[in-house]
């Protein structure tokens, strides 16, 4: 069974008399180890879909199963545990806590996962090394560049050993070269086995993934494997 099964997901926002169909019935499935880009113009529903995939929001209608969890059936606390154990988020604006060091930021999800301090430190340090920040563990976010901050955020996303990494425009706040470096990191993580869904405006970014889902007005208008992914799949 695929890691994500989405059947006819809808999301309605009511603004006074108006109803916005942020998602107008989308169905797709994403297998494990997939590296998938979601593209589309602003307001097309990409973030809404990501939030629902990450258990931050619930669909108005439709059925969503992720790693065997029926998202529609889960309580608030269940969703919190689900986010902690199954999902790793990477945000456009990094969202690091400014008072905490890089190491402590990476430890944060493990605190909510009840991981003991010693193991937490070790895992966080290991992850920071993995994203190339072994020398900067004690730095506060303000002492790090944008690219370094996003690396810390990626290390944090990995801290709960998630089954799915969701990144909503992770290069949106970075210059082109730094963005390419970060994408390289995602590619490396995918080759090491991570399932990644990444939202982007940038077709260059999308080209680096295996698969591109294009959205418009809450619909999926195309869902294609990229050339590289065809090769990649052939290798599997």
């Amino acid at each position, binding site marked *: 069974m695929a890691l994500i099964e989405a059947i006819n997901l809808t999301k309605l926002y009511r603004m006074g008399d108006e109803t916005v169909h942020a998602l107008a019935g989308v169905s797709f499935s994403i297998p494990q180890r997939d590296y998938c880009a979601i593209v589309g113009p602003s307001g097309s529903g990409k973030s809404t879909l990501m*939030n629902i995939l*990450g258990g*931050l*929001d619930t669909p108005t209608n439709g059925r969503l199963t992720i790693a065997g969890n029926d998202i529609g059936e889960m309580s*608030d*606390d269940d969703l*919190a*545990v689900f*986010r*902690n*154990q199954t999902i790793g*988020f990477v*945000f456009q604006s990094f*969202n690091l*806590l400014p*008072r905490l060091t890089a190491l402590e930021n990476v430890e*944060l*999800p493990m*605190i*909510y*996962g*009840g991981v003991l*301090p010693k193991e937490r430190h070790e895992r966080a340090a290991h992850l920071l090394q993995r994203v190339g920040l072994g020398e900067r563990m004690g730095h506060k976010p303000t002492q790090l560049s944008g690219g370094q901050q996003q690396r810390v955020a990626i290390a*944090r996303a990995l801290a*709960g050993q998630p089954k799915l990494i969701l990144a909503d425009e992770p290069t949106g706040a970075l210059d082109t070269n730094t963005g390419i470096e970060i994408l390289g990191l995602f590619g490396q993580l995918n080759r090491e086995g991570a399932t990644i869904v990444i939202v982007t405006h940038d077709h260059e970014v999308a080209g680096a993934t295996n698969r591109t889902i294009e959205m418009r007005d809450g619909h999926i208008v195309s869902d294609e494997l990229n050339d590289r992914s065809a090769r990649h799949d052939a290798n599997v």
Partner: protein
Amino acid sequence: MMRTSDLVASAARALRANPMRSALTALGVIIGVASVVAMVALGSGAQAQVQRSIASLGSNLLIVVPGALRGGGGVRGQAGAGGGWDALTLDDAAAIAQLENVAVVAPSQRTRAQVIANGTNWSPEVNGVTPDFLVARDWNIDQGRMFDETEERQARRVVVLGQTVADNLFPNMDPIGQTVRMNGGTYEVIGILASKGQSGFQDQDDIVLAPFTTVKRRIAGRRGRADSVSQISVKAQSEDVLSQVQEDVENLLRQRHRTREGEDDFTVQNLSSISEAMAQTTQVFTYLLGGISAVSLLVGGIGIMNIMLVSVTERTREIGLRKALGARQSDILHQFGLEAVTLSVAGGIIGLVIGVAGAWGMTTLFNLPLVVSPLNAGLAIAFSGLVGVVFGAYPAWRAAKLDPIEALRRE
């Protein structure tokens, strides 16, 4: 689920991030708890002082004085039949001594006189008493001896000095065997009373005891009847029979003076009931002071709530992020609740220290005993914790209920 140690660490870190703000917020509770603690300690000290000084007058003691008690509580002379200030006589005292359950009866004649020794002048209360007076008033002799019944009957010129009088007239020598002059006569000092200290505003040691007959004949002057007394101290055999004895004394004197209830020319004061009433008054006073101070604690609590609400607003994004990373509602609730409780309990502990110090200063100033019970201290801390829980609950609940998506979108 968050571990408790992580919860505490995270609350401490958040409070340390804004040390000035945390300190000012805690200040409200500090002032509240300090004033409650200081006021209650001061009130309890006053209460203990009142009880102590009334108890020092003597236990199981009734004091009969001439004149009727007015509704308001003062004693006034009554110009009715047989009334006035010499309504009580030695015969009355003798009759009271015959009543059941009476241990000791001591009539006394109070007056004031100039006492001179070594060229020093002093105006203490001079009390003409019988030797039983000391028994009735639970008073002891510190040095020398009390005069005996023979000396009393023979109106001997001997005196026993209160501590204050002895200290002032004979600062550098042993007063026993020395003489003092009163009303032109010479009197030998044969004893010094043990100190009783203050009773209210009155120094109980500013007193000279002389034989009753001596005072009557040689010092008090020819005012009133020869056998009148200004006071009769009646000691009952026990606390239990005290009010019964009071009633018996009143009935007896009404019979002897041919007066009816309501027209009495005498008053029987029951010191233990006076003591109780005064203790109650000071206790009410204590609660009042504590209650007024508790209002400032309330204000401190509102300060905490205010700052916690500000903090939740400022940290909306942080809360959203924490939720996205797996914090449950209860984790957020506990984190912010603990911050509020930490502020208030820290404030409570500091306030307790300051309050006790303040109470110590004030009680020292007013010469009162310092009464700080561990129970009250514990209550102060517990109460400040409660303030944190009550006033931290709403902001913490607001934080816990935040929608993570909304919160993350906030700048």
